[in-house]
């Protein structure tokens, strides 16, 4: 009798757990996974979200379908997008989030919140700012993949090649939540049939304030990370051009006078190989000339760029973080107050280690 009771209890427990312990099923063939999502400005409170859904066709090619919806909240747009989709739309595989410049100017903190709060979003997700309409960019199909995967491949390839600073959702959130540092994101633009990188979008908190042009990008990257594979083009005085590739950079920060208004000296070591030179010969004298020229250019660009940062009171390179890590009892407010008066100087040291296989 007792044994029967026990067996009955076990059966009841297991069957009730089986009946009530179920969660929703998501079978891969029955859901739509967004591969990219873009946000455009409608009016002050409303954003228009565009989701890219890859369509896998029977002949193994991948199509592109976009759905657009607008609402005040970005999660709400997903449910609106769901109303237009035959299969449930989920965002676990979203690889790229795009924000149009206009949205970014309004501040993307609220929109990013839906990404950071969602456990199914990868920390490696790419975020980019679009010069123009994100909707237009996403509506087109590029290459043989769907737009989302194409974009993520494009960005990843450029980051690996050192042409675009390494950013992802995690880095953005780190900088955005930091008291001292301000975030930056790659800026892309659609031109004709292609997407290309236009520069770097600089933020103050979550507001877009300015973009860096392509020619300032190299020194920006050299100051923010240690580059592995950079490229740099320079124009010499005698109207000759030289291209330096495979550039390794290493930056070291020195901070003086941490008690008062600090002074920051940054040394950037640049090592590269000459890959192209329109002049006649690359002898020692020429190379020295190129070397000096690069040093001068870099220092010049850096000084101008940092002046702009100080004028706008933004700190995308993390100078504040450098000072904080060298100061006891660091005072955030005092630093932010004095930020525009801080003396920051950049010294570049260039060495050209090879010049290819011809003289």
């Amino acid at each position, binding site marked *: 009798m007792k044994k029967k009771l026990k067996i009955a209890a076990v059966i009841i427990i297991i069957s*009730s757990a089986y009946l*009530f*312990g179920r969660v929703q099923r998501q079978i891969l063939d029955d859901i739509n996974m967004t591969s990219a999502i873009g946000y455009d400005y409608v009016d002050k409170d409303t954003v228009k979200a565009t989701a890219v859904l890859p369509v896998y066709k029977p002949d193994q090619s991948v199509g592109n379908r976009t759905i657009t919806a607008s609402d005040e909240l970005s999660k709400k747009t997903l449910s609106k997008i769901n109303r237009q989709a035959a299969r449930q739309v989920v965002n676990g595989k979203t690889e790229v989030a795009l924000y149009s410049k206009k949205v970014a100017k309004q501040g993307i903190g609220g929109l990013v919140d839906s990404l950071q709060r969602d456990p199914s979003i*990868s*920390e490696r997700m790419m975020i980019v700012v679009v010069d123009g309409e994100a909707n237009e960019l996403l509506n087109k199909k590029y290459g043989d993949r769907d737009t989302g995967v194409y974009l993520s491949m494009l960005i990843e390839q450029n980051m690996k090649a050192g042409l675009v600073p390494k950013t992802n959702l*995690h880095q953005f959130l780190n900088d955005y939540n*930091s008291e001292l540092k301000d975030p930056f994101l790659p800026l892309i633009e659609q031109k004709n049939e292609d997407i290309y990188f236009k520069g770097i979008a600089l933020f103050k908190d979550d507001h877009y304030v300015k973009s860096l042009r392509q020619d300032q990008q190299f020194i920006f990257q050299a100051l923010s990370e240690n580059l592995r594979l950079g490229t740099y083009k320079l124009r010499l005085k005698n109207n000759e051009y030289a291209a330096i590739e495979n550039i390794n950079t290493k930056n070291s920060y020195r901070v003086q006078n941490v008690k008062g208004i600090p002074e920051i000296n940054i040394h950037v070591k640049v090592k590269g190989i000459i890959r192209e030179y329109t002049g006649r010969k690359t002898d020692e004298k020429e190379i020295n000339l190129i070397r000096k020229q690069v040093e001068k250019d870099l220092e010049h660009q850096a000084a101008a760029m940092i002046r702009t940062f100080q004028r706008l009171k933004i700190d995308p390179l993390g100078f504040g973080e450098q000072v904080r890590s060298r100061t006891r009892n*660091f005072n955030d407010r005092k630093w932010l107050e004095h930020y525009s008066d801080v003396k920051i100087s950049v010294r570049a040291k260039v060495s050209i280690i090879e010049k290819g296989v011809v003289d």
Partner: protein
Amino acid sequence: MKTAIKNEFLVSPFLVFFLMHGMQYGVGVLGFQRDIVKFVGHDAWISILIIGILVHIIIWMMYSMLNKDKGDLITIHQRTFGKWLGNLLSLLFIVYVLAESITVLRSYIEIVQVWMFPLLKTWPFALVFLLSVYYVVSGGFRIVTGVCFLSVLLPSYLILTFFVPIPFSNFRNLLPIFDHSIYEIAKSIKGAAISFSGFEYLLFYYSFIKRPASSQKWAHYGNLVTITLYLLVMIVTLGFFDQGYLKKVLWPTLMMWKIIELPFVERFELIGVTSWVVVMLPIVCLMLWSASRGIKEMFKLQQKKVLVFLLLICFLICCLLMERETIHQYNKWVATVGFYTLFGYIPFLFVCYHLRFKVRKKG
């Protein structure tokens, strides 16, 4: 008052290593960083080192009492404070053990609900989990130890995952060292000490160890491994997150798993959280085993019946804790009680116990 336990129920001394480390390395690992960082920011790793040393001292204290007594917490209490007061204190300790087991289980279910299945109800999970706890505990202490042993070995591959965020980290975040006052460090220790709890169960299972006095070194090794792992996780966390961001994140360890990218699985946390069941099971098992064993000792009841009763309480309270805020409040409450029990009451007991013997010898 020594209750002789048959040789066949005893476990080898080296298994204390797994009992010690397995119990300490639990649900706390997934989110302990917050409670420390709140107070000391980038100096959090110092607090962990200090907690580690404190735990070593308390393990030494427990062994010094147990080696003399050759019993467990119940007999120590009875000898120090007399039968009635001693039993009352043991009962309070058991209530704390039960409260902690509920914290552990509910926190884990919350993680499953937030990170994996938002629609999962609490009670079916708790029911199935506690059923397996009953199955393990009713098998006796040797089975509990076996599960503990596996729970350390099976998910040990997860240690590798803590190295993945390093390329995305900036270890300048850790500087300058010693930037916080002693007071702030003390406060952080109070906040986070509960994550390192689990060593106190030695007071219950001591008499189940063969040649118990020789197991002390294994207990210390266990704690050493725990502290090393916590230290590793903490340092990687501090490098990986900016302070401002870290203060917002509820489960930093799980957040770090989000950076892992594998060709066959998009979201690694799902594997991590699932693997964590193996880590959680022996913790709840040993807690409930200790509680039921203690009650059995005191009131001479049948352990299985006590166990069913305790499981029922555990189950009911688990289901009653519904929202994030209530769970958080409950956890905070248990953490405070736990801190005073482990780092206040055990040293107090240690002093009382030895004083009592000194006085008796004289008299």
